[in-house]
């Protein structure tokens, strides 16, 4: 077995990196919200998306109806 690579593949922290990272977190949380919790308020699809992803929501462990 080869020696583990002593490398750190991530860029150094900077204010710019932090702001882009924070923006990404916001977008990912919005996406997770649409799958797990939205009942039409954000998606504006009525209950369609909620019902479409109902089985997935239950199997992903999110509380639902």
């Amino acid at each position, binding site marked *: *077995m*080869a020696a*583990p*690579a*002593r*490398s*750190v*593949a*991530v*860029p150094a*922290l900077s204010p710019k*990196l*932090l702001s*882009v*990272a924070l923006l*990404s*977190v916001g*977008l*990912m*949380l919005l*996406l*997770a919200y*649409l*799958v*797990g*919790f939205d009942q039409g308020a954000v998606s504006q699809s*009525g*209950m*369609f998306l909620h*019902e*479409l*992803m*109902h*089985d*997935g*929501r*239950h*199997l*992903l*462990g*999110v*509380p*639902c*109806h």
Partner: protein
Amino acid sequence: MRTFGSLLVRGLIVGLFAGLLAGTFAYVTGEPRIDASIAIEEAGAHAHTHAHEEDHHEDPLVSRDGQRAGLFLATSLYGVALGGLFAVAFTLLRRKLRTGNDAYAALGLAAAGFVGIVVVPFLKYPPNPPAVGDPDTITRRTVTYLLTLVIGLLAVWAGVALSRWAARYGDVARLAGGVAGLVGTVVAAYLILPGINEVPESFPATLLWQFRFASLGTQATLWLLIGFGYAVAVDRRPIRSKVAAA
């Protein structure tokens, strides 16, 4: 060195694949249990409406077949979201993880995420199949569920912090510190959080737990594949030396 954009895109792609495969696992293990739960609910509803002569069944917004397909949409989108969050966490926490190996760092982070976001909430509020919950308590159940996510991540953090602090007293202390930090936080939180149990007495316990283990397995698949997938995706060695090392 990888840029943040490249780290993020890798997370999104890994998350998409992990979500699709977790969806397949969920389809095979979970769908039969969901169908059985709905059948039980409908049998109950029929018994109720019998006296009213007609059946109050509304046409569903999405057919069962549609929901079965929607399962893959849900796990895929959820996988993408988790993969993206995972990539951000990897970027921000990588230097705090005490390993020189990026693949080990990814696996450790996935294990921490699985314990904090899946196992800890599961033990307090195990998921229920459709047709079991009371719609009136959905807000309360959502808030307590989100609380267990936060507590789960706090518990993992407390375990890591305590084990690092105790490491100066030896390996046994390091292990004991980690367990104490994790379990202590979880037990304290579980005593404070309200218990919620809306499963009717008449609901078959076997079916309930088959569903719950299908749900746990779905999420385990998701996190396992995110961890291993990201470990491979972030490795900067060329494929040939990866194979040679294996």
